[in-house]
């Protein structure tokens, strides 16, 4: 029991930064007594993670571009479902943006927007899995050609990132239920929105990549 409490506190500290009372929040002093990086540690941590994730997707993108220039690259027919999925992710991102804005003004509908965003993201994942199913039904498997390998790999890695986002989303949902609009909750919503927009951007780039080649 005690260990479980310790574990939970650890998780919350890992996600929120040291001292979830926010005392860590804004340190890092400049020479004139002002703060050099006036932003919560968690937000900076997320930016650092996004930088690493950007490199990850940039590497995959450049690998894709190099590979598709090879002579034995056979283009992949894109399932039309992808457009629907793109719409779902776009709506999800938009819903989170509304959640972020209404959280800032402490509006009660924040949790509704948040819920909608999560459901849409789950639908997106389902849609992606369905697209996989359609592709394999059409005879395009993971090892069929580098084009299909890349498609499965890129969508899988992107999907895993969305799933990771859903974990953070679930935590934010519980926060919303417990104590509404603590600064911490507001920050969580904001960080979720930031992450969602990033994943939307990555997906749009990837879709463009699939579509153009």
């Amino acid at each position: 029991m005690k260990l479980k409490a310790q574990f939970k506190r650890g998780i919350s500290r890992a996600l929120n930064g040291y001292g979830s009372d926010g005392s860590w929040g804004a340190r890092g002093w400049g020479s004139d007594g002002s703060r050099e990086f006036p932003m919560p540690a968690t937000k900076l941590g997320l930016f650092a993670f996004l930088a690493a994730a950007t490199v990850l997707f940039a590497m995959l993108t450049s690998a894709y571009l190099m590979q598709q220039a090879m002579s034995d690259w056979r283009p992949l027919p894109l399932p039309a479902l992808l457009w629907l999925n793109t719409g779902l992710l776009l709506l999800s991102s938009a819903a989170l943006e509304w959640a972020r804005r209404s959280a800032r003004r402490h509006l009660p509908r924040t949790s509704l927007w948040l819920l909608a965003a999560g459901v849409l993201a789950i639908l997106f994942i389902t849609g992606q899995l369905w697209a996989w199913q359609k592709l394999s039904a059409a005879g395009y498997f993971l090892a069929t050609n580098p084009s299909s390998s890349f498609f499965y790999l890129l969508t899988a890695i992107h999907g895993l990132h969305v799933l990771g986002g859903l974990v953070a989303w679930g935590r934010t949902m519980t926060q919303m239920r417990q104590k509404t609009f603590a600064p911490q909750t507001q920050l969580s919503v904001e960080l979720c929105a930031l992450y969602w927009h990033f994943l939307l951007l990555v997906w749009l780039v990837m879709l463009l990549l699939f579509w153009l080649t």
Partner: protein
Amino acid sequence: MEHPTHRARVEHEAHHEPTGFWRRYIFSQDHKVIALQYTITALLVGAVGMGFSWLLRLQLGFPGEFKFIQPENYLQFVTQHGMIMIVYLLTALLLGGFGNYLIPLMIGAWDMAFPFLNMLSYWTYLVSVILLFAAFFVAGGPTGAGWTLYPPQSVIEGASPGAGWGIRLMLISLAVFVAAATMGGLNYVTTVLQGRTRGMTLMRLPLSVWGIFVASVLALLAFPALFVGGVMLLLDSLAGTSFFVPTVNLFGRQLGHEGGNPILFQHLFWYFGHPEVYIVILPAMGLVSDIIANHARKPIFGYRAMIWAILAIGAISFVVWAHHMFVSGMNPYFSFWFAVSTLAVAIPSAIKTYNWLLTLWGGNLRFTTPMLFAIGFVSTFVAGGLTGLFLGNVVVNVHLTDTYFVVGHFHLVMGVSAILGIFAGLYHWFPKATGRLYNETLGKIHFWVTFIGTYLIFFPMYWLGFLGVPRRYFSFSAVESLPPSAQGLSAFITVVALIVGAAQLLFAFNLIWSALRGKKSDGNPWHATTLEWQTPTTPPPHGNWGPEEPAVYRWAYDYSVPGAPQDYIPQNVAEVPAATQKK
């Protein structure tokens, strides 16, 4: 304004100070415990890596004498030695060990920004180590494809030893390691930017923190490339995809792959692999800078230039990767660019070297063990770095590629240098971490054997390389162009390598014995200025600073300030006689 919350938090933490053995020493979230866990694990793994170097040297020095070393084993030894030393020893020890220990203490923080993530980082690292060694117990053994793991040979059964589960476990282990390094890197970057105490501006940070900070940024931006390459190679091996493996006809047997591009792997690998060199050398440079300034009792020469050099090296490290691939073939304009950018690294490197030398110049030198190792670092860094100028030139590179010249180069410039920097750091911060002094005589013997020994090992390799001795060969009996003297030199290198390896036992003994029985040390035996030496107790307590975190009033290098009562002024001292105030 900040005070009440700070105090509340400190008290809150004090109540939560872990008590039981498990949470205090095993599943600890204290950065100092995690640092020691990283350090001890990495040193043990490194000892295994050194054992492999003995085995492969035995074969090279006395071919055929040791019947248990077959060509497959030899390739596995070479591969595992390289991978263990670069990733699981140097990276883990410098970032996970020194980064964890020094960052919060040097910047005046209670702990890392995300302590739980920090703990998770260590345990993830341990899992990657276990996976690494698990490969020894699968059919075919660990991979023997060279630490670069180039496909197609690394994943095709029969083309290299351990091409089945050996390589797969290696790749899974690397992917797990990337996760550990990313968790650590996020923490180090965030902590350095956000955790600094009042008065600790970026331009007052000790260079150790600067080195570790920039290396952490490099790790965040470089490791994803290894992750991508590793996952794709794993799929090639496990799922039969063709990311890297082209159509292959192996002894008349047509394999199922088609359309893969092996060069693509090389790009991904070296996009990670080259910054990786700086991920291990920048922290070592930082440690060495602080140690040299401290034991020379002088401010570091050109502090700002040092920082700009660190940043420049970090930035350039991302645009030089293809110099590892000159012989893989590329557009001549590309190779021109990569040669020029590679040679440009010499400029910030030279700035740093001159600054170290000018710090030593006229200093009140104390030749303690850490100081000796730090000076040794500068020496091997120059001796190895200068040959980088040879290798960076395409026309020279083509002849020297895959010879012992390259082996000598990278061992001196990033292998030996980084490890000498680590030794310097371990001896220097040993009194802080344990509260005891190490044995100085043993330390000096350890230094001289290691330092002279590494020159005797790696300098002759330059010569072997000029003779054209290829690296990674099990036996040279079929290479008729080699004179017999090459074999004599190889035997000599092996004998020295055995001696230097044995000397590390002195180090291990010194470390263990002194930690248990060494003379008690006070909190600041080196009369150092930086914050970690000003903690209320030694070793520092949980939370580092007690009720009040230190405030910083000066940079980290106020040594031998004229008119000051002592020859050093700690960073958290506000008042000194007015005439001596440093601007």
